[in-house]
């Protein structure tokens, strides 16, 4: 039930998007945040063999089955999270980056993130003035069960507030911002720890950027109907 092979024919120079038939699992082990259960991870491997050549490419990624839903609590204005249908009390740590000289090794990430897990945190909030964190950061958040709130690169201080009041219209090149945002989403979207994309810190991005992000990141209608959608 966990292996699928499809025959695909690609014309010369073609660049296509292909969707596998969905794979069925009965009661797979779910991924849970720190303190709520086990961080069960599966290994997903995709390979393509070409007739007359052999194995042409291979891609693998660990994957956790989990469903994260968040809503705004109308009475408090706060954001409430549910994971796999269960409400979770968020104990989050603010995160800028691990080192100001960007000496970002696996060992460093592992130590930093395990430290937060050992402090019984269950969320890391990547602040808008810092980095779009790296796959290694997310890998250890997957491993130790830390949900990640990842902001894009807008801060109140530099983009519309601050002292002196700064420019609310964001970067000079909005298309570049959106290109970077979309490429960052493609880089990180398969990590089970990724819980929330946020436009920026204490500030809404310029309306064209904000609308584009909200449009690009909306949940696909198909998934509205799955459990607790």
């Amino acid at each position, binding site marked *: 039930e966990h292996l699928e092979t499809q025959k695909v024919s690609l014309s010369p120079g073609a660049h296509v998007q292909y969707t596998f038939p969905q794979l069925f699992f009965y009661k797979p082990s779910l991924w849970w945040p720190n303190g709520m259960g086990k961080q069960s991870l599966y290994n997903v491997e995709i390979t393509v063999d070409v007739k007359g050549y052999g194995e042409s490419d291979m891609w693998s990624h660990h994957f956790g089955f989990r469903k994260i839903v968040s809503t705004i609590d109308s009475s408090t204005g706060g954001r409430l999270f549910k994971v796999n249908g269960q409400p979770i009390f968020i104990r989050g740590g603010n995160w800028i980056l691990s080192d100001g000289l960007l000496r970002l090794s696996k060992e460093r990430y592992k130590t930093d993130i395990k430290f937060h897990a050992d402090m019984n945190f269950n969320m890391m909030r990547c602040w808008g*003035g810092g980095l779009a964190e790296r796959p290694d950061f997310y890998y250890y958040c997957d491993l130790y069960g830390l949900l990640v709130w990842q902001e894009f690169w807008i801060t109140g201080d530099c983009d519309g507030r601050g002292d002196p009041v700064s420019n609310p219209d964001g970067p000079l090149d909005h298309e570049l911002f959106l290109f970077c945002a979309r490429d960052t989403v493609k880089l990180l979207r398969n990590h089970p720890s990724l819980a929330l994309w946020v436009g920026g810190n204490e500030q809404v991005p310029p309306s064209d950027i904000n609308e584009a992000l909200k449009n690009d990141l909306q949940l696909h209608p198909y998934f509205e109907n799955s459990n607790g959608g």
Partner: protein
Amino acid sequence: MAEIGKTVLDKGWLAARSTEVALTGVQLTTSDPPSIADPTSPWMEAAVPGTVLGTLLKNKLIPDPFYGLQNEAILDIADSGREYYTFWFFTSFECKLSNNQHADLNFRAINYSAEVYLNGHKEVLPKGMFRRHSIDITDILNPDGQNLLAVIVYPPDHPGRIPPAGGQGGDHEIAKDVAAQYVEGWDWMTPIRDRNTGIWDEVSITVTGPVKIVDPHLVSSFFDDYKRVYLHTTTELVNKSAWEAECSLNIQVSTELEGNMCLV
């Protein structure tokens, strides 16, 4: 035949301040590759992935900015000008393809913009700290498998000037670029003098056959109280060859049990 898969280039990098290098990128990657054998050479061991300041600290050319007030002794880019922190990075690697094989040179992130020279061939990389770059190098690899790579990296376009009083994000100029803003300093962080200029994430070579897998997307959906679960997978496929490719596309999901046994 080169092995299918990824090779990370994280060793043997050299770096030099661009204003101290007279050679062009073409010369550096053809006739005049740099060396650190000559003590008067401007080249030094580089921290890649990392930043220019990381490389300078590695070579003890600046004090550690995170001890005491030593950051004050490091020249800020607003005073030095962007060219001071515009640096060349150089390395060499082996890669020899066979028929129907293709190779990409990948940068997972560069701050802020760069020009890549490989075996004398130039490629300009667009700006942006948070974007990947992938260059098809199949046709510019050297036949003998020995390849010379040089990258000149430019700082953010608007590094800004730190006001005497400091403050949140300095003069906010950095926000004109798509780059980390903390580098102009905050109430919890000193300004980063090079604004984190550098090849700050993984550099790799990926070798594939004629068809390449790009950016798969995995999503799960749940029904019947998480008893019935589906994995949805979409991926981009690129046929780099000039002929029809008949493919078998496989997806396998396994759970690693104890002792490296897999449940398929």
